[in-house]
């Protein structure tokens, strides 16, 4: 098991948005998070990534396991594609950037500055970053935004490669990723809809 979650509750802006979540992801497995806009997918992924503490529940996760890809790509528009990738490779002490460039079909763009890419090309670069981290668990927030059909297939191939190598992935998305083998976790039943009230102390939750 790469990650296990028990009875998790997460909050955003001081409000608990999801509760009672429990799941586990084994090596080689991909989990797809589904839920309407504003249901808390991003919040959940940030919590799993360790950026914010859960309001309740436990997360079983070895340290140095995750690579997180958020809505924003974290690209520096004045650095070239190769420089952007090489930076993250150095930070993670990860592998060479060559295979990542190949996998995301960026070879023609390596010397282009990131600010001069089209929306979809930027996103491909953002995804290539995952491949240089060498981390087993990928946390992906709507990874295929702005990608054309060919690039979505490229991405699905990269995820399959990662899983085949014993990796795992948790992916929040609204669209079809072309990964029919992935398990789907619907967040709708876990949304917090009713107000729980009791003592005065509760107001500080």
């Amino acid at each position, binding site marked *: 098991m790469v990650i296990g979650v028990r009875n998790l509750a997460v909050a955003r*802006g*001081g*409000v*608990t*948005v999801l509760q009672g979540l429990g799941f586990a992801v084994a090596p080689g497995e991909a989990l797809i998070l589904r839920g309407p806009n504003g249901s808390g997918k991003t919040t959940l992924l940030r919590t799993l990534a360790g950026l914010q503490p859960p309001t309740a529940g436990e997360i079983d996760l070895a340290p140095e396991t995750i690579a997180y890809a958020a809505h924003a790509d974290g690209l520096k528009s004045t650095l070239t594609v190769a420089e952007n990738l090489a930076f993250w490779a150095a930070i993670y002490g990860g592998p060479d950037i060559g295979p990542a460039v190949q996998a995301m079909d960026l070879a023609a763009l390596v010397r282009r500055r990131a600010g001069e890419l089209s929306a979809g090309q930027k996103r491909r670069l953002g995804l290539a970053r995952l491949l240089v981290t060498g981390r087993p668990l990928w946390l992906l927030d709507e990874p295929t935004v702005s990608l054309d059909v060919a690039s979505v297939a490229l991405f699905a191939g990269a995820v399959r490669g990662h899983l085949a190598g014993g990796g795992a992935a948790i992916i929040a998305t609204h669209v079809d990723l072309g990964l029919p083998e992935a398990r789907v976790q619907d967040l709708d039943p876990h949304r*917090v*809809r*009713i*107000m*729980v*009230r009791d*003592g*005065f*102390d*509760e*107001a*500080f*939750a």
Partner: protein
Amino acid sequence: MSIWEYANPKKFMQTSAWVLPWAVGLTVACLVVGLVWGFFFTPDDYKQGSTVKIIYLHVPSAMMAINAWVMMLVASLIWIVRRHHVSALAAKAAAPIGLTFTLVALVTGALWGQPMWGTWWAWDPRLTSFLILCLFYLGYIALWEAIENPDTAADLTSILCLVGSVFALLSRYAVNFWNQGLHQGASLSLDREENVSNVFWVPLLVCIAGFVLLFVTLVLMRTRTEIRARRLKALLARERVA
């Protein structure tokens, strides 16, 4: 029972509701007695003339301006170590009071300086460090105001208060080093014999007590407001989910 029980907001609200009227009464009594005594029934100083009467405002407010910061520092430490919400909110509540006292000390000092030193403002070390203290208060209050999430705000302002205290001490020392200045020394210190004469001394003590009580009263009152505001915010946030 332990003092930490007052870290429970409910308990704090109950106790403070009981204490508050007494605190208000004592404050008013002390301030009225001290100020009336000082203003109407003390003689003029042989050197400073009637301006000594300013001392009853200037010295207590200057003392409380510093003490309020110390109280905020302690409350911040309690929040960092034990995460008691009431203590973080008390620190927040104290800041505007400290700022007001700082301004009172600055304004009365400036008004005093005009007849005594012939200038409204001099870059004397004590004056300068008060200006800097004023900036610290402004920054601290602005940080509280700028952050939406109350826990985040409490954490960050506590860190600022800690680091700021260290630098405030450093500044005090630096400013002393930089300029020797005009301001009188600490004539209140107990180990010195040439204290201010008793005629001024006793009403001054009453005034100091009055300002301390005023501080306590206002902190209690404002902390109650902050607790209510915090609860209001939590309830509204819940409403939003529903």
